[in-house]
């Protein structure tokens, strides 16, 4: 496996195949981004439903970009990267979701509604 050199040229099928992955990734990302903008700005759905949908669209786009641009997939050679990314996301969920959870819990006990403590 080499990350930087291939013995094939730019007219090879392998190159076109790899390129197709970038094009797909790009096209899907554009579609998902615009869909998010339309849903958030359009007012078709209720706020909480729209909030969930844009969240899901973002996660989908995240996975697509890891796959298309950073070459994280189920193949054997991408396995270390895949495990690394999965472990990182486990830690991110623990840390970021944990932080939001702890701080929201604290806020619930301290009369901190939306808008901060000025109302106390």
């Amino acid at each position, binding site marked *: *496996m*080499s*990350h*930087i*050199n*291939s013995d*094939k*040229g*730019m007219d090879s099928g*392998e*190159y076109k195949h*790899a*390129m197709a992955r*970038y094009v797909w*990734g*790009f096209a899907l*990302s*554009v579609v998902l*981004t*615009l869909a*998010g*903008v339309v*849903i*958030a*700005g359009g007012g078709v759905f209720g*706020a909480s439903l729209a*909030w969930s949908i*844009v*969240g899901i*669209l*973002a996660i989908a*786009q*995240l996975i697509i*970009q*890891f796959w*298309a*641009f*950073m070459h994280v997939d189920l193949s054997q050679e991408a396995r*270390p*990267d895949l495990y*690394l*990314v999965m472990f*990182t996301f486990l*830690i*991110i969920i623990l*840390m*970021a*979701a944990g*932080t*939001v959870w702890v*701080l*929201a819990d604290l*806020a619930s006990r301290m009369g*901190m*509604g*939306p*808008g*901060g*403590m*000025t109302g106390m």
Partner: protein
Amino acid sequence: MSATMTNTGAAGHTASHDHGHHDKTGTVIFGFWIFLMSDLIAFSLMIANYADAEWHGIANGPSPHELFSLGLPTIETMALLISTFTFGICTLGMKYGASMKRTIGWLVLTLALGAIFLGIELYEFHEFWTDGNTPQVSGFLTAYYSLVGLHGLHVTSGIIWGIILMVQMKHFGMNDLLKSRLVRLGLFWHMLDIVWIALFTKVYLMGVLS
């Protein structure tokens, strides 16, 4: 290969070519992956802090709903998205033996799109700032400027790094060392777009919905 392979300052090299399986370029790139993951932790903590601040830290300042619109941020997002695609074309071509001219051409386009992204971001900062919405106003604005600003600093360093690489390509030629460095910058750049998906969704899309 080993004689010309070196590091980008942060990454050194020890030669153990007697290990049959040892692939130095792959190792440096894997090390860089780990660094990126560690960086991702920093962004995720900033996002968590932002989520708390936009909820409880508005104080006497504006709310996200009052501050944000989707127009400019969408254009900005598209610029960065196109740039991550053009960087992909750049590194893919490089791997399959594209000329240095083509590689530099795509890299220039990528960095230019990155500069457009940055310009829009700075314009937006400027607009908010002149309206009196500085980071010193509230916990929410502090979180906003530092989260988006941290990403902007990354893009800035990516652009500077890219310019240095172009100079070095002229200096060293398109050897394996430069290819490895370009691939690492590419990973950095793709990662910044992935981070931006989260930022754009959390800050702007969910901001106007709040």
